[in-house]
């Protein structure tokens, strides 16, 4: 397949994942803003930082982290290249470029997403309507994901799209941890003592895992356990370990069908082996913040290597 097409499938998947993640971040931020108006502004700021859009927001609106303004910026501001609307548009552009490599069902799902969100986000969303709009965004994303796994051939194109999904997801989970890591530090919440209830729930909600956590760990809430859940727990589909396994599976399949040793395969394996095959206590020992910073760097380097190895661009 064309390198450009591989790149388009990869970026389509990344952008779709990003739109879904951002919808989840807005949802979590919105809950806090509703229930704790005193911390709303700092919460919105941390949502913007997690989404990598704080700088752009401050350029446009200064330090005025008002709910309505932040939500509008994240959802639909045409001047914000990372707004959900812009990101879905770019996902669709990439899908159009790679149109010949996807089934009609997948293309129509992506195209329908773009049309639906375009209509939903035409005007500023009223606070009352926000939960419905966010649900619609998640529904569109699920629709694409479902048709993708249900109709796509399991060939190299599929592998590139999956790589995009899991690179983006790993990046997102790591960023959430990065922004909130101070809440998880033992100095703030000693092992055994509980951290701020609403705060931990926000973290779990932003990865759609607050129920899964309880199901797994019961009612005991500890910083160590949350970190373990999000970093190392392999059955959790947004954990770093899960994402890395998926990336390595897809890189392995590419290696097998191309019969070619790629540097990206080695790098992916190294991330799992050197960073994610150790107990959570040892990660805390080395410093959670340092761990996450290092992971984000390695993940980004892997992304660049994939683009090079598979000739996305010249």
């Amino acid at each position, binding site marked *: 397949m064309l*390198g*450009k097409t*591989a790149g388009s499938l990869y970026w389509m998947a990344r952008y779709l994942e990003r739109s879904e993640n951002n919808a989840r971040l807005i949802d979590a931020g919105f809950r806090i803003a509703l229930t704790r108006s005193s911390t709303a502004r700092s919460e919105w700021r941390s949502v913007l930082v997690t989404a990598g859009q704080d700088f752009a927001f401050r350029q446009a609106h200064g330090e005025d982290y008002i709910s309505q303004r932040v939500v509008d910026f994240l959802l639909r501001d045409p001047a914000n290249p990372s707004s959900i609307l812009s990101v879905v548009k770019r996902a669709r*552009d990439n899908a*159009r470029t790679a149109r*010949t490599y996807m089934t009609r069902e997948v293309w129509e799902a992506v*195209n329908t997403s773009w*049309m639906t969100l375009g209509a939903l986000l035409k005007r500023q969303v009223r606070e009352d309507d926000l939960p419905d709009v966010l649900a619609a965004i998640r529904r569109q994303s699920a629709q694409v994901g479902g048709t993708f796994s249900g109709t796509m051939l399991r060939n190299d194109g599929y592998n590139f799209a999956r790589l995009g999904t899991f690179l983006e997801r790993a990046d997102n989970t790591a960023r959430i941890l990065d922004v909130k890591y101070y809440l998880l530090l033992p100095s703030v919440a000693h092992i055994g003592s509980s951290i701020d209830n609403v705060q931990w729930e926000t973290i779990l909600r932003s990865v759609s895992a607050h129920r899964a956590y309880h199901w797994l760990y019961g009612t005991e809430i500890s910083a160590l356990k949350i970190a373990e859940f999000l970093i190392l727990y392999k059955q959790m589909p947004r954990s770093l370990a899960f994402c890395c396994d998926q990336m390595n599976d897809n890189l392995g399949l590419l290696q097998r069908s191309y019969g070619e040793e790629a540097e990206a395969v080695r790098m992916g394996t190294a991330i799992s082996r050197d960073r994610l095959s150790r107990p959570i206590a040892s990660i805390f020992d080395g410093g959670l913040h340092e761990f996450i910073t290092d992971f984000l760097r390695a993940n980004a380097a892997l992304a660049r290597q994939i683009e090079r190895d598979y000739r996305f661009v010249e």
Partner: protein
Amino acid sequence: MLRGKGWRIHFFDEMTGQGGEVRSPYREYSDWFGREDTARIQRKTQQAEAFFRTTGITFNVYGEDEADERLIPFDVVPRIIAASEWRRLSRGIEQRVRALNAFLHDIYHRQEILRAGRVPVELISRNEAFLPMMMGMDPPGGVYTHISGIDIVRTGADEYYVLEDNARTPSGVSYMLENRETMLQMFPELFAKISVREVGDYPLNLLKSLAACAPPACNGTPTVAVLTPGIHNSAYFEHSFLADQMGAELVEGHDLRVVDGRVAMRTTQGYTPIDVLYRRVDDDFLDPLNFRPDSVLGVPGIWDVYRAGAITIANAPGTGIADDKALYSYMPDIIEFYTGEKALLPNVPTWRCSEPEHLREVLDRLPELVVKEVHGSGGYGMLVGPAASKKEIAAFRAKLEANPRNYIAQPTLSLSTVPIFTKAGLAPRHVDLRPFVLMSPQGIKITPGGLTRVAMRKGSLVVNSSQGGGTKDTWVLED
């Protein structure tokens, strides 16, 4: 001197003739329609629109916001052509396409037709569409116009005219295919009742036809690719549709480079050579080294690969000289010169404004004529005399007098009508027809029917999609 035939006030309707009884090709459809609930058809029309939107069968209008993708209106009433009518049309089309190819070969080799004085030399030598670099070139398989579209209008039960030839990169075939697909989904019962000739094998025929023109450098199964300017091009949907249906790669200029004397595409595993490139970019943009240096749509050096016989470019560069509007009026001579036969499908009588005598007559009769720019397309920059105001005519007269060689004029044809579905029932609208013709060393293949374009506005004679025209499914009946 040329004389228009005198214009009828009434138009020929393909369903009811001169407004009388339903003509035989439409009889079964008309019976069916009479029994149908119009509310149901109304609903189907809306479904069709939603279908086109989700499928992404849209086009971008140049100069407008890129987010503004438009639908070409689709009308659910088919345009129906009898088997005997189609036989006659297709013979004429085939003759015309053969002549166009023979003309192109001649014009880029010995130029016999110029020596014989049948076409004026300056019409070629001063023409921007003429590509001197093609002189002496033999395109693989001897084919210049792999794909052409011949625009035909009907003016009576037995009267057809060729309005223009499209020998560069005619578009619209994806609409022909999707229109049929839509009709099959909406009204399957109609196709069970009425035997309509298939059009869905066009992509496969296109692939076969292109592969049959593979260059000498090709060994094994030819690799075919479609070259598109990219997703912002107005016909991008069609480019990706055709590539998809053929199972060919859809490439852009930046996917390609010359490697070891071949044009190759960048794949995830390195560069792979292409044998046949179905390009949907204009000649000018093909090769920044040999044509427009600012082009980013083409491939630097492709021209040299082409000359060395290591790639087929479809259509061949330089075919624009054959569909130039200034040459159009010579087509009857061109057909006779190369085939030894009279043209089976007549040209529309045409005044060449570059000739003083013609110009004088055109200026005299401006309110009744259609005047077109020689190099224009898409229905832009033209005057439809009978539909224009006095002021518009006066303004156009000034333009025409200032630069007469830029224009040709034709009588306002009484284009036939076919009914469209409106809320008030069936209503006649003017149509034209673009059949698509494939040519390879194995022969000429014409898809039965083609794309019917329809002026959706009452009384309008302009069918171009850029001017609010729509399309219809076109049925050629089985014998």
